[in-house]
């Protein structure tokens, strides 16, 4: 079509854009529920994989959680219950320091006698290099985190002992980012007080990860003692008590 009338030109372009927009809106209305369902299903499957619990609570409010490190954030925190007892936490954290961007990790944390150890982790999303960083999704790497406690460090070149994990060869950055996400999850979980399990003597344990951080400016160990020790599950998240 040969025309240079600007009104016609604008009208034609407007028509094309409008049609495309409606087509996209239609496709979106079809795919949106499927996408939402996929995401939910993925999360449900992952949380059952990382923590042995019969039931999971709803997401707790994580807005108040202050982490001692930057580059990592807490996306969600849930409690897991077996026979009405809180047996642990499922914490989802995102570390932005992966080689290919954000790495989202779901960490199942066992809480036994007030001590938090990692049960299992699941990588929810990552965009690392296949064959290198993407190997973080393999069980041989993920299973290393089982039983570890806060302050996990990465060891290069194999032979990790104690609270260390072996870095994926050629992908130290990825290994560190995943570890950071796991440590942040442990840190977030340590700030959760479940009153039925609350035991004053355990308190130093649960704040340990922060006390070794020199930059940490959060006042520690000031959790308000909970008198209602018999209550089933009142929960406080992430508050380090405000000290004036």
């Amino acid at each position, binding site marked *: 079509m040969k*025309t240079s009338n600007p009104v016609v030109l604008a009208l034609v*372009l407007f028509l*094309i854009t409008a049609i495309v927009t409606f087509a*996209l809106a239609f496709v979106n209305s079809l795919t949106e529920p499927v996408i939402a369902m996929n995401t939910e299903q993925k999360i449900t499957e992952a949380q059952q994989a990382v923590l042995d619990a019969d039931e999971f609570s709803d997401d707790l409010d994580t807005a108040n959680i202050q982490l001692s490190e930057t580059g990592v954030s807490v996306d969600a925190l849930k409690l897991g219950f077996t026979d009405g007892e809180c047996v642990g936490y499922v914490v989802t954290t995102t570390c932005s320091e992966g080689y290919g961007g954000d790495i989202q990790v779901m960490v199942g944390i066992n809480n036994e006698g007030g001590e938090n150890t990692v049960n299992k982790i699941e990588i929810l*999303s990552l965009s690392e290099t*296949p*064959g290198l960083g993407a190997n973080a999704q393999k069980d041989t790497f993920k299973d290393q985190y089982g039983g570890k406690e806060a302050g996990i460090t990465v060891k290069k070149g194999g032979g990790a002992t104690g609270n260390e994990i072996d870095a994926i060869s050629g992908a130290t950055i990825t290994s560190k980012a995943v570890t950071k996400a796991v440590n942040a999850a442990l840190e977030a979980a340590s700030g959760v007080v479940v009153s039925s399990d609350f035991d004053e003597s355990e308190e130093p344990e649960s704040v340990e990860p922060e006390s070794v951080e020199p930059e940490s400016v959060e006042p520690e160990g000031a959790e308000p003692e909970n008198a209602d020790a018999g209550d089933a599950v009142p929960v406080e998240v992430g508050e380090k008590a405000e000290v004036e």
Partner: protein
Amino acid sequence: MKSIKTILNGLLYENPTFILLLGMCPTLATTTGVSNAVGMGLSAAAVLICSNIVISLLRKLIPSKIRIAAYIVIIAGFVTVVQMALEAYLPSLYESLGLYIPLIVVNCIILGRAEAFASKNSVWLSALDGLGMGLGFTCALVLIALVREVLGAGEILGMSIFPEAWNFQPASIMLLAPGAFLTLGVLLGIINAVRGRGGKKNA
């Protein structure tokens, strides 16, 4: 006859990656594994076929002054459809292709075929051209990805192919950006050498 020629043209004689050297960004970036390459190639092919058809249908209606803008809107529309469909039905592929799906919009193969072919030819031929170019792009990506995945990870489609006894040490560099350039360069060299010989005969 012309139909077959159009398809072969995209697959071989004017292969977008190896001959026209178009769309290098996704070629280099998404060929770390065969599954990614297939996903990227087929997504681009789907967009290419659809956009070629629509642009060919509208070729007499779109004023030439705004044709590029119109093409981009149409292409972007199809890319977004592909993106939403992948996210809904193939979420794992969607995650590994990541940013490169939206980037199909600016893949110069697609705009190039719209401008060079679809805007001048019938719907049927344009669709075939899209198919041929799309498959040519897919084959090229798979070929590069095959080399990179085998040498860089010792795997094909995520499965180990070397017996453990060989103690094969994959060269990780093949999976990183330099590996993409090395592979592409060597493959281009081989293809040019083969074509050069054929060309001399004809001359």
